[in-house]
């Protein structure tokens, strides 16, 4: 009995480590920017190009900053979730239009609805690099002081909104 104990324990340990590894999606990397302010930016708005928008315009309320592009298929998938969320008028949603053409982005919002309070344009993807964006869509949750508190990689779903994003936003708004 005793002579089998150690090998069995080692086996169980290896299985546990491998199972833990399998359960984690390697594409979802935690961002080093969590806990830090959203990096500074100053860019024209999508629908009002004559106006600039900066990181200071996002201060004061907890909210979402959603990185999207019209060429991104997964963005199309998550878009109804964002539209439904914005209709509740509970928290502001900002957009970062990443590596996109202005006309394409506008057409997309006309066709699918505009959930954004304002859209930051980033045609060359330079703001995206400052934010550590590596795959659209990505969504940042920021608090009232503009600190990044959470980052969701991949399309938002009703379940993610209900279980993670909304409880966090409620908490941040109460802070």
């Amino acid at each position, binding site marked *: 009995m005793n002579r089998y104990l150690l090998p069995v324990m080692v086996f169980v340990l290896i299985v546990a480590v491998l199972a833990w590894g399998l359960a984690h999606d390697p594409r979802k*990397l935690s961002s*080093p920017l969590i806990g830090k302010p959203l990096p500074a930016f100053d860019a024209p708005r999508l629908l009002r190009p004559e106006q600039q928008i900066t990181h200071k315009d996002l201060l004061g309320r907890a909210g979402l900053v959603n990185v999207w592009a019209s060429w991104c298929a997964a963005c199309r998938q998550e878009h109804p979730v964002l539209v439904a969320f914005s209709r509740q008028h509970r928290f502001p949603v900002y957009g970062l239009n990443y*590596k996109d053409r202005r006309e394409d982005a506008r057409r997309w919002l006309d066709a699918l609805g505009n959930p954004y309070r304002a859209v930051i344009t980033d045609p060359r*993807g330079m703001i995206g*690099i400052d934010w*550590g964006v*590596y*795959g659209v869509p990505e969504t940042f949750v920021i608090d009232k002081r503009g600190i990044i508190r959470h980052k969701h990689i991949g399309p938002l779903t009703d379940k993610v909104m209900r279980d993670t994003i909304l409880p966090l936003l409620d908490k941040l708004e109460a802070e």
Partner: protein
Amino acid sequence: MHWRAITLLLLATIWAMPATAAEKMVQFDTPGQEQRYYRLIDQLRCLVCQNQNIADSNADLARDLRRIVQNKIRRGESDRQILDYLVARYGDFVLYNPRLKPATWLLWFGPFVLLIIAVLILLRIIRHRQDTVVSLSNDDERRIEELLKRDHRS
């Protein structure tokens, strides 16, 4: 007929060449800068296609990062500054050669810890075997001697 097809194929490959060459147009002031560039992009991970470095990857983001590395080198930034810039945005995961710090201790020292454990187990097994061979009572030894003597006489 065959020859014509082969000639056409060869011509096609020649025409296709400038397309691949265009991407490699990287200009530096000194050969040293160029060397640093290739060394850096070789050890940076492409986050979109995670098992490639940004030197090999054709992903959009990899191209952007190559351009950023190139500009920073030309502006005279040190390797350390460039790597810090990327780690601040994408985390340690961008480095194929991770830095030594508490979060990466397991990564760096884990294999050696496993090796030590394995050697310890091996030593224990060897010692255990020796013990079982040597442990003979006095009675047993006397009997062996007698048997051996009897063997010699016969």
